[in-house]
């Protein structure tokens, strides 16, 4: 964006050049003397949202930083300062480290998800019958609430549930497993549900980027005898590389903060505990709010770090394809 929205133009001008006479100002007859309150207008507008933001977002976050260096149990009147003990525990307790290992399943899942999304986005950017219907079908899962998805798949994957029934009917009994019960495949099942949920979002991101490619480039390529594969490899992929990078970064930070699906489906049991599930459990089951706050701070720092890397790798100008 090169210019500010037009509506803000005069207001900013009014705020930054108070001593220049402006004959085009409001016809209400306000003169030079009342200009001070006009200059206040933007601040008055900002007062409420900024106040709420400070009250509801930044105060709790500052509180969380404070809790994270105490041994608070969530109730006690007295919060003892323990320094960085909680942070040390986050990174030394083997049970706390195991949750990072579980995240790897979701990282792999997000790669699969990107591949699928890219595949569908490319296909649907060409001429296809019922294009909008396919788009709708692919995007629909993302619109469903995460808890609802957990419940849907809980019933679908339970022994004798939907998936098992389909496998039995099609003569694939040998493939029937305890999808969430078998510790060897529980994480794959949950990661697959997560992929099912988020593929639509990645797909829409990719599709939007692909559609912003100038169609003349395709025509020129077609004249040079390029086939679909050439078009994908030499035109589409280079053009949307920033978006692919973005999707990758989102996938990484998303993998660390997976919560709803494993929480609803297995409650983190059977070796499927993720970082956030463990944080919630620490805070509300074990009553170690201090440690849980430290974990939340670690997650926050991690996500900020990933976002910073993303900003470095994908400068904003390049994302703008218009």
């Amino acid at each position, binding site marked *: 964006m090169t210019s500010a929205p037009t509506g803000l133009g005069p207001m900013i001008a009014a705020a930054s050049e108070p001593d220049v006479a402006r004959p085009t100002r409001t016809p209400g007859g306000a003169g030079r003397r009342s200009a001070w309150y006009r200059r206040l207008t933007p601040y*008055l507008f900002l007062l409420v949202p900024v*106040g709420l933001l400070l*009250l509801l977002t930044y105060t709790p976050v500052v509180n969380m930083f404070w809790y994270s260096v105490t041994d608070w149990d969530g*109730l006690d009147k007295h919060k003892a300062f323990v320094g960085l003990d909680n942070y040390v525990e986050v990174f030394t307790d083997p049970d706390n480290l195991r949750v990072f290992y579980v995240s790897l399943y979701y990282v792999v899942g997000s790669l699969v998800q990107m591949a699928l999304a890219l595949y569908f986005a490319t296909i649907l950017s060409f001429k296809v019958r019922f294009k909008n219907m396919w788009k709708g079908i692919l995007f629909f899962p993302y619109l469903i609430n995460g808890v609802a998805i957990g419940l849907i798949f809980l019933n679908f994957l339970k*022994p004798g549930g939907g998936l098992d029934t389909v496998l039995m009917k099609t003569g694939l009994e040998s493939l029937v497993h305890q999808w969430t019960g078998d510790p060897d495949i529980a994480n794959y099942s949950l990661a697959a549900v997560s992929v099912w949920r988020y593929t639509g979002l990645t797909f829409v991101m990719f599709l939007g980027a692909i559609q912003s490619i100038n169609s003349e480039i395709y025509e020129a390529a077609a004249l040079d005898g390029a086939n679909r594969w050439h078009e994908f490899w030499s035109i589409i992929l280079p053009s949307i590389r920033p978006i692919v990078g973005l999707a990758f970064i989102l996938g990484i930070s998303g993998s660390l903060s997976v919560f709803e699906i494993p929480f609803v489906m297995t409650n983190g*049991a059977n070796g499927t505990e993720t970082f956030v599930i463990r944080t919630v459990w620490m805070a509300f089951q074990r009553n170690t709010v201090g440690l849980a706050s430290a974990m939340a701070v670690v997650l926050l720092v991690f996500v900020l770090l990933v976002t910073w890397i993303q900003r470095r790798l994908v400068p904003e100008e390049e994302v703008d394809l218009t």
Partner: protein
Amino acid sequence: MFPQKRRLLALAAAGTVLALTAACSGGSGSGDDSSGNADGTPSGKISVLTWRTDLVEDGTFDTYVTEFKKKYPEVTDVKVEGVKDYEGTVKTRMNTDDYGDVLAIPGSVTPDQLPDFFEPLGDQAEMEKDYRWLNDKSFDGKSYGIPVVGNVQGILYNKRVWEEAGITEFPTTPQEFLDDLQTIKDKGVAKVAPLYTNYKDSWALSQWDGWRGAVTADPDALNEMTQTDTPWTPDSDYGVIDGTIYDAVKQGLTEADPTTTDWEGSKRQIGVGDIATMALGSWAIPQMAAAAKDAGADPADIAYMPVPVQVDGKFHTVAGGDYNLGINVHSKNKATARAWIDWFNHDSGYSESQVGLSPLIDGAVPAALESFMSQVEMITMNPAPAGKESLFADIDTASGIVTTDPKYRLQIIDDARSGARTKEQIFDDLNGKWAEGRADAGA
């Protein structure tokens, strides 16, 4: 964008908004117009927090309130608030002053925190002349809560299913218990499972802790546990509990896929006999019986058996208090709050309607538990000796096991299913951690 001076101004203004909003939210709690009479006669209004949302919805509490107001006509209003996820919600609310006048004391409040949040109800020694099970919520000789009902601990089972499998006697050893479950499985009378773990709703696994003390018939079982480095042996309380769970899972006597268990569904399943057995406190009997009735089965099928261990030829059961009612230390109407607690324990008929033992020493035994109680000896666990009140919890936390948290028991079930560890390996691991915890806690 804005000059420096303005920025400061904006910040100051935003700060004012913050302060105003904070003042408002702080003020709303104190606008409470309830107050008792100066002479202590119950009057005015109180609010009561309860975990029994089901009894609020079905109108039982309305009846209680009407009865209570009949006895104390000066009481204008009793506002009953049913709280879902009671433990978590109320614990958070207790960070303010506004958490009702009468409430059940959440389990996570440690004894030394009681005086911060609850009004003392009297000297423990004095109150013990009338009430049972006061140890849990007492501190420094004062009692802060009275249990609404007493539960006994053992095994809930479907009598019809067990009889159809040809078993009419209570098992007397853990091995016999497992053999009986095997018989039920072999005869195919319980479609879902002879024993249901409720693994997914993991709190249900903590119910097995009700066996502690009953296994060795020792009211000091927990206190003695703080004095040993090896609480997990084949004959100890924890050894029998966790060993029985391990063996039952290992031998396939529990549900096929524990990760998909469903607490609400299990009520119906044990009611109609698809599940034969669950380890739950006696508080679960009325819920299961109601579910059985709803499903068209006979509620009388739901019965209760003791922990399958005999000491000196007798079964034992541990009795203890359920939730304790306490008074908010910030309450403006403590006299009426106290009257509600006393009325609830003496006149409401709650304990009998819940098939529990009355908290009163001379209280009646409900009909559904009479035959059970006649075959078992009741134990009440002894409190920790003075100065060591928190020793068990300290060791428990320092060891990293945290027996109050079902997590380690989920791991036992995982291991039993996958065969990753044998029972002996699990016990060695737990004993090792416990010994470390004892060293850390300075026991």
